């Protein structure tokens, strides 16, 4: 059996089956659960890198499920954009799996640990499935697998996380149902569910009201799932009260995969000209995301809770990506796709640091961060790196994607959007320098005398890996663009 040929299906099936096997391992030997969980995610990373290298050298991969020819059967399609996202999702999930070993033990009961691992594997399955599938209904099913496991994972956090998770269920279900309605309308008018088939069928139907209704349902549904500003209500509470490993994983991947769905719907299902010339969607999304960036940043200033600050910064970052996607030119699109990677790494790193501080200090309040550099010097250096990248200071990764976004916004003559991106960077600088001041420059008398040392190694290593990744991605962003992202730019830009 050729492994590479079946890699695109194995990457879904392995974590899916493993999540059930993991529960049965409880009866066999409890201590086996964690190594098994880590092994499965490690296999996923290897498979994803294998898929990426195949795509880079041979172009788009197509896998027919069960041998049924599309458009009747479900087809898995992996092009550069999918492969890029699969690598991001599986690596982030592996890194945070390492991190979760010690961090989660403090937050949930020991007896529930195997169930946590199983749900985590299911979330990974759902996210990988969304990115890999070439069928819009199959995408809905994976979207719900991912969301359901995310609801469950968030609910195991602190006490208040249960209410947050309930609100997430209500909002998430509305989003998913809107998406399903969009699928319904598309199916009524074309009779097909396969994305490549729809690309061929839809252009002659652009004037139809049914197509427009479908697009409207798709966009609103996805906007709820990615928490675009006025529909963001579920996000801050969920990610603040969830266990730290879960908030790191979910914030880094769930919203990014949502952006991927938005890109697929708007540029593969429809042509770019449909969004710019026939409907005013592109223009609308630009203003919508500009407002999201502005308010996300403004609200982030006023927060005292570190994880909540990060959540609002994340909402602004989602605005960046939607802005880049909707600008409709090459620079903006490259910026958005590059920002998916950068933001996933940055936000994962910051949420892991927040979890680390919570692990040692027992608080997320920014007031309690005073003088932490004495006790946790390495974590704090990683924090500085991630924060500088979030602000967008070269040579960290965050600078390059913001640079492309601003170039794109100027080229599309949306100067206000470009100015908002700069403004939001300044706000990030304000937020993070205020925290730096607390950590490094407070008077000796006020510093509380903590006795703890650095974080345990299993939490240190993932933080260091992501912090270094920010620098490495920054240095190699040119190569990433020329070898992967260049090919994801849709035709017609």
């Amino acid at each position, binding site marked *: 059996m050729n492994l590479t040929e079946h890699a695109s299906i194995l990457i879904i099936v392995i974590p899916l089956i493993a999540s059930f096997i993991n529960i049965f391992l409880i009866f066999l030997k409890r201590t086996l659960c964690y190594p098994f969980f880590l092994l499965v995610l490690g296999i996923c990373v290897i498979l994803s890198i294998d898929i990426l290298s195949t795509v880079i050298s041979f172009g788009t991969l197509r896998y027919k499920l069960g041998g049924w020819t599309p458009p009747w059967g479900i087809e898995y399609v992996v092009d550069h954009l999918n492969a890029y996202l699969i690598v991001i999702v599986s690596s982030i999930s592996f890194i945070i799996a390492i991190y979760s070993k010690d961090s989660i033990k403090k937050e949930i009961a020991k007896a529930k640990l195997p169930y946590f691992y199983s749900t985590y594997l299911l979330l990974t399955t759902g996210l990988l499935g969304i990115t890999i599938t070439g069928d819009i*209904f199959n995408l*809905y*099913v994976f979207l*719900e697998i991912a969301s*359901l496991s995310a*609801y*469950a994972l968030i*609910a195991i956090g602190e*006490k*208040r996380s*249960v*209410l947050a*998770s*309930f609100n997430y*269920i*209500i909002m998430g*279900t*509305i989003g998913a*149902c809107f998406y*399903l*309605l969009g699928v*319904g309308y598309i*199916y*009524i008018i074309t009779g097909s569910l396969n994305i490549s088939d729809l690309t061929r069928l839809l252009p002659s139907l652009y004037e139809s009201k049914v197509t427009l209704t479908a697009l409207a349902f798709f966009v609103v549904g996805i906007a709820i799932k990615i928490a675009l500003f006025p529909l963001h209500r579920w996000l801050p509470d969920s990610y603040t009260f969830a266990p730290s490993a879960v908030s790191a994983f979910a914030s880094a991947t769930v919203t990014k995969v949502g952006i991927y769905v938005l890109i697929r719907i708007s540029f593969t299902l429809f042509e770019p000209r449909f969004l710019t010339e026939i409907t005013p969607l592109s223009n609308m999304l630009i203003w919508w995301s500009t407002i999201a960036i502005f308010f996300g940043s403004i609200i982030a200033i006023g927060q005292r809770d570190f994880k909540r600050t990060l959540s609002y910064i994340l909402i602004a970052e989602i605005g960046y990506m939607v802005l880049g996607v909707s600008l409709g030119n090459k620079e903006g699109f490259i910026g958005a796709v590059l920002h998916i990677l950068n933001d996933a790494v940055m936000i994962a790193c910051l949420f892991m640091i927040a979890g680390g501080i919570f692990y040692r200090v027992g608080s997320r309040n920014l007031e309690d961060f005073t003088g932490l550099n004495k006790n946790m010097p390495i974590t704090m250096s990683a924090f500085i790196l991630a924060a500088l990248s979030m602000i967008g200071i070269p040579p960290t990764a965050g600078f390059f994607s913001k640079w492309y976004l601003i170039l794109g916004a100027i080229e599309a003559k949306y100067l206000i959007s470009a100015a908002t991106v700069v403004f939001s960077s300044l706000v990030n600088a304000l937020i993070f320098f205020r925290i730096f001041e607390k950590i490094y420059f407070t008077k000796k008398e006020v510093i509380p005398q903590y006795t703890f040392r650095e974080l345990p190694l299993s939490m240190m290593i993932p933080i260091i890996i992501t912090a270094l990744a920010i620098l490495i991605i920054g240095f190699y962003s040119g190569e990433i663009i020329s070898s992967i992202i260049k090919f994801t730019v849709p035709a017609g830009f």
Partner: protein
Amino acid sequence: MEIIIGKYNYWIYISLMMIGFYAMIAKKNLVKKIVGMNIFQTAIILFFISTAYKKDATIPILVKSQEVINPAQYINPLPHVLMLTAIVVMVSTFGVALAIIMMLYKQYKTLDEDEIIEILKKKK
């Protein structure tokens, strides 16, 4: 008048969906919210199934002796199959939501949204 009678299935699905939507947003009791969510999802099932219907058509079972197949004779089976999957998804959503409601009840001893918010305010 034509648009109401001729497309009554869409009107019914939209009104059902709005009832569910109203319950999800306006009702204070969490269980009623979940029931609203279920109505909302059921409306979508109705929408899909009703689009598959054809007048005077039968169930899509192929008889071996029959040689000429006329697609107009059969109702479209695909939306039904899709909805089977969607029902599974909806049942699991409902299950997760009920489990979370149980956790909420254990914590706050009430299922009223306003009362829960008041308890949270007092804690601060």
